[in-house]
């Protein structure tokens, strides 16, 4: 994995208008993504975690302009040059779409039920006018083999497949244009563990075979740990921590990350210091986020300054790789995942 930046996201915002009344006047905004900046490096898997509604999917969609960002810059490196994709015209966008693909959560609704596997997987090839029909069918067969499906399934329809197989079809379709970057939005969240393991292994194999870069969105911290090199933690439309996998689980630097680590089920009875950390309350509405640090309503360490001043995302202990947005990052001694997973093996 290189440290070269493939995508550079700066000050990205996506606000959804809230409309009220018969005139549908804009009464406010849902700040789904509120000023986030991060980079995706060539060849890495960047994990993104956070509770539902914190803006993960909106971030994923905005950076490839499946939805238009409200503000901010997204630069993508092509042939050594960084290009601003938010300024791309139609033709440029079409070329960009060949390089970046998305795989979605729900293998049931993300595929068109009336399209056969052949049509589903070859559609992107058709849209980008790649090859003759015969060549396209050959490519589809190859893609199906790559993702572990049988070519005899070519003329079947989505309802004839299991959840895991449908997810493979979605991945085959995403691979059709030989992309560089794939954004996986909860791609394994709806699957049983056994099938989830198949898809995670497949994604890793494809990465080493084709040198792919992934942005992997998930809410399951065990899955994120397994697949990611670096991890971005989001809370209420903002990034609260960015770290390598090792740093995040061994040395979390934001109280929200600590709370997430403390809530992971570990499958064993905990003892003493290993007790689960319980966070009170729920995520506030992104239409009306709390002032100051948006986490202060649930943070066990909140002080006066937290209610007034918004913390900025800054490097932790002079490490450019590890950033957190908390006024007390240097003072707090947060627990690691290993502190939380001390278990009782005595059999009692």
């Amino acid at each position: 994995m290189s440290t070269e930046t493939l995508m550079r996201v700066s000050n990205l915002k996506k606000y959804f208008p809230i409309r009220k009344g018969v005139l549908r006047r804009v009464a406010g905004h849902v700040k789904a993504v509120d000023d986030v900046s991060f980079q995706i490096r060539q060849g890495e898997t960047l994990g993104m975690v956070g509770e539902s509604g914190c803006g993960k999917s909106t971030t994923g969609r905005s950076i490839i302009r499946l939805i238009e960002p409200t503000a901010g810059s997204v630069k993508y490196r092509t042939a050594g040059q960084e290009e601003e994709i938010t300024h791309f015209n139609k033709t440029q966008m079409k070329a960009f779409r060949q390089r970046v693909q998305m795989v979605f959560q729900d293998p049931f609704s993300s595929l068109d039920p009336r399209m056969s596997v052949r049509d589903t997987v070859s559609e992107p090839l058709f849209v980008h006018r790649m090859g003759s029909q015969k060549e396209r069918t050959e490519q589809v067969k190859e893609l199906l083999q790559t993702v572990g499906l049988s070519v005899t399934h070519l003329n079947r329809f989505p309802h004839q497949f299991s959840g895991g197989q449908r997810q493979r079809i979605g991945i085959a379709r995403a691979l059709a244009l030989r992309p560089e970057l794939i954004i996986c939005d909860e791609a394994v969240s709806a699957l049983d563990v056994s099938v989830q393991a198949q898809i995670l292994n497949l994604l890793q194999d494809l990465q080493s075979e084709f040198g792919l870069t992934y942005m992997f969105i998930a809410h399951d911290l065990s899955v994120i740990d397994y697949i990611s090199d670096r991890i971005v933690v989001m809370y209420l439309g903002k990034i609260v921590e960015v770290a390598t996998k090792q740093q995040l689980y061994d040395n979390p630097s934001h109280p929200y990350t600590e709370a997430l680590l403390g809530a992971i089920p570990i499958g064993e009875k905990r003892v003493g210091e290993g007790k689960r950390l319980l966070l009170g309350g729920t995520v506030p509405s992104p239409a009306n986020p709390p002032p100051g640090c948006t986490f202060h309503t649930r943070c066990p360490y909140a002080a006066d300054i937290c209610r007034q001043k918004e913390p900025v995302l800054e490097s932790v202990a002079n490490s450019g790789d590890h950033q957190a947005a908390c006024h007390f990052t240097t003072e707090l001694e947060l627990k690691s995942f290993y502190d939380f997973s001390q278990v009782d093996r005595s059999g009692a």
Partner: protein
Amino acid sequence: MTEPNRLVEVNDLEVVFDTVEGRTHAVNGVSFSMDAGETVGIVGESGCGKSVMSLAMLQLVPRPHGKIARGSIIYYQRGKAVEITKLNPTGKAMRALRGNEMAMIFQEPMTSLNPVYTIGEQIMEVLRLHQKMDNTRAKQRAIEMLEKVGVPDAAQRVEEYPHQFSGGMRQRAMIAMALSCTPNLLVADEPTTALDVTIEAQILELLAELQRDINMAVLFISHDLKVIGEIADRVIVMYAGWVVEEAMREDIFQNPQHPYTRSLLAAIPRIGRRERLVSIPGRVPSLSQLPPGCFFAPRCPAATDQCRREEPQVFTVNQGHTVKCWNYWDKEVQKTS
């Protein structure tokens, strides 16, 4: 001879659905028991019969297609055995049991909350019906219950409708409703699957706490072994309508014997571990077209000809630990005999 502490016994239970595609064997000869105050976890992949099993516990198998075809469920009501599989599912006796002795919570709270009544009205309804409380008492108790499950401003929120509650809050409201009659048995079908980890942790803690308070037994269904491991005393692993392994929690995690249990454990990503995940090839068979012999044989790395021919017997590993697998017999039992 029954144990003095025994609360429920399920004996050789079979639940089937008759549809146009033929007969689905959702639960296929399941036996297990539960003691008062105990938490038993049921784990297995999607479509293994977990939800149907939990519905059967309260005689809630959807009719007319579904029915209990064989076997029995015995519930010990203050020591007296009641064969609930003999009761009319919609009759008075069964309804009384459901209100006073057993309760159920579902994965999707909206299936048991009615959108047109306030949360308070719905809890009060249960209390009026089963505990014969008057309105004032019932309302007071409803507020108490909501407070107990951690709904903030309960006195106000008791007047709100389900859609005004967040997912986690609805789950709490449903738990409050289910527990308002202090049941002896709670059947919880994936109660946290739809929730975020921080909320899941809150709900698991809440269940454990309430359970200590009222000495309630919980049958906790989940597809997530790690969640089961947080809460269960004993674990039942289901595959294609069978119980394939049953053991105390520690034994399931430290000493699993069934190839399916082992595969499930190896498929879970665990923090800090880097080895490649082990995936189980194929998928759960259609419960209307079950293979002969062992239902797991088409996916099992240890399958032999015998497995493909004969249904495996249940073998005892040690006290309280059983496994339905020929391989265990080959390895352990045959060796010593």
